[in-house]
């Protein structure tokens, strides 16, 4: 049995500490967001953690005005798919950027978002 390079729990513990981490395939070099057991490119099972700088650009975004029950008090809020400079992309909550100024291609920077003791990915001004 192989230990996973980064579990979901470990990923978000690092997020809470202000770090964004990916995994890189030792066999073919493919970069991915965990969790992933096999490399989707070469099917090897040999991941190593790799730190991400946290700099990226908005690939797409939306302002959510009708929220799910558990987020109703937060609306309106923006979420964006952000392509990080290393090439992988993740969804994050936009913080400290006026909703009206959001645009595809806008540079943003990762920051941890901790709400009721739960860590998630945020992106603020670059």
């Amino acid at each position: 049995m192989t230990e996973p390079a980064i579990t979901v729990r470990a990923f978000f513990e690092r997020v809470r500490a202000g770090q964004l981490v990916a995994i890189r395939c030792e066999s073919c070099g493919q970069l991915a967001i965990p969790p992933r057991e096999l490399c989707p490119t070469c099917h090897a099972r040999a991941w190593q953690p790799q730190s991400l700088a946290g700099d990226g650009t908005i690939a797409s975004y939306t302002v959510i005005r009708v929220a799910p029950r558990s987020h109703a008090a937060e609306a309106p809020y923006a979420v964006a798919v952000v392509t990080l400079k290393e090439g992988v992309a993740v969804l994050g909550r936009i913080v400290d950027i006026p909703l009206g100024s959001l645009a595809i291609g806008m540079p943003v920077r990762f920051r941890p978002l901790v709400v009721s003791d739960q860590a998630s990915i945020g992106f603020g001004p670059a």
Partner: protein
Amino acid sequence: MRRVAVIGVGVTKFGLHDRTSAELFAEAAADALTDAGIPASAVQALYYGNVVGGETEHQLHTGPQAASVLGIPSVPTTRFETACASSHAAFRHAVMEIAAGVSDVVMVGGAERVLNVTTAESTEYFAYASDAVWEQRLGLTFPGVFALIARAHMQKHGTTEAQMAAVAVKNHRHGALNPKAQFQKQITIEQVLKSAYVADPLKIFDCCPFSDGGAALVLASEEVARRHRKPVWVLGSAAASDWMLLGDKRDLSRVPATERAAAAAYRQAGLGPDDVDVVEVHDCFTIAEIVATEGLGFFEPGAGGRAAEEGRTSLGGEIPVNPSGGLKAKGHPIGATGAAQIAEIVTQLRGEAGPRQVDGARRGLTHTLGGNTATVLVSLFGRD
């Protein structure tokens, strides 16, 4: 592999019902048996779609429950859950059971009940079809998923909010011709454009409604189907998946699972997009119809919005899309949707669609998308 036909269809009215999802399915299923002209005792299996029964009705194990309420408790039944594509996935597996020679007559159905809970609750339950940790925690909603797709499509291709509005107006115009539709009133471009944003750039009139409803189909082997008045043949049925996380999707302006499922279904049928006369696509949001008509090969990537605006997808246009009114106007009881789309195409190919009939339709296609675009099913149908 044996040929398979649809010989019976049944659909409840979509909208608000004071009945459980099992009751809604059973009404549709009994209608489908009557339509097929065969007794319930002929049914050898039930393939069933239901999605949020656990959340809205505190009900799992919905397959045998549905069979019991219908009155055929002893047949083997399995519930399929591929988010909004559930009963289309159920259909594909039922087709394979008959094609493989395991059964001669199989029922496919689905039902959903969500209007017994608040919009905030149903918005939350539908979001369960996105990733719990990576996406739900951020407050992502399904309008939000398709808003991200819409924004990417607008950026890449210049698609406009007015083009998306044209899809809503067209589907409401079609829905006004469908007595089973949840909305049977026409709307204007101005009404759509002036409606409130749900998730920018999608407005309330870009979104399909929450709906209760049920749908059912009776499938049969060629030998049984030949005794039926108007069998509609299954020419192809394919499923495809894609990455679950939005961040892993390389190009948000496309739905690769649609392109893959369509390619496989066309290959099975020996047909291409030009051979199709009528289509039911998964227009959970107006942008979803635009991207679907591109992925299915009716229009080039980026040309779907303009095509809708020019009326090319209207009844009377070159490729009528969603003559039923689509999810947008007919309604979207998610577990029932795939089966209901197939029921519409069967009705069209029989020439029994009344005022919304596509004249002379011989070949039809259904396209159903699950959740965050990670599941798509495409099936092709034809008449003798």
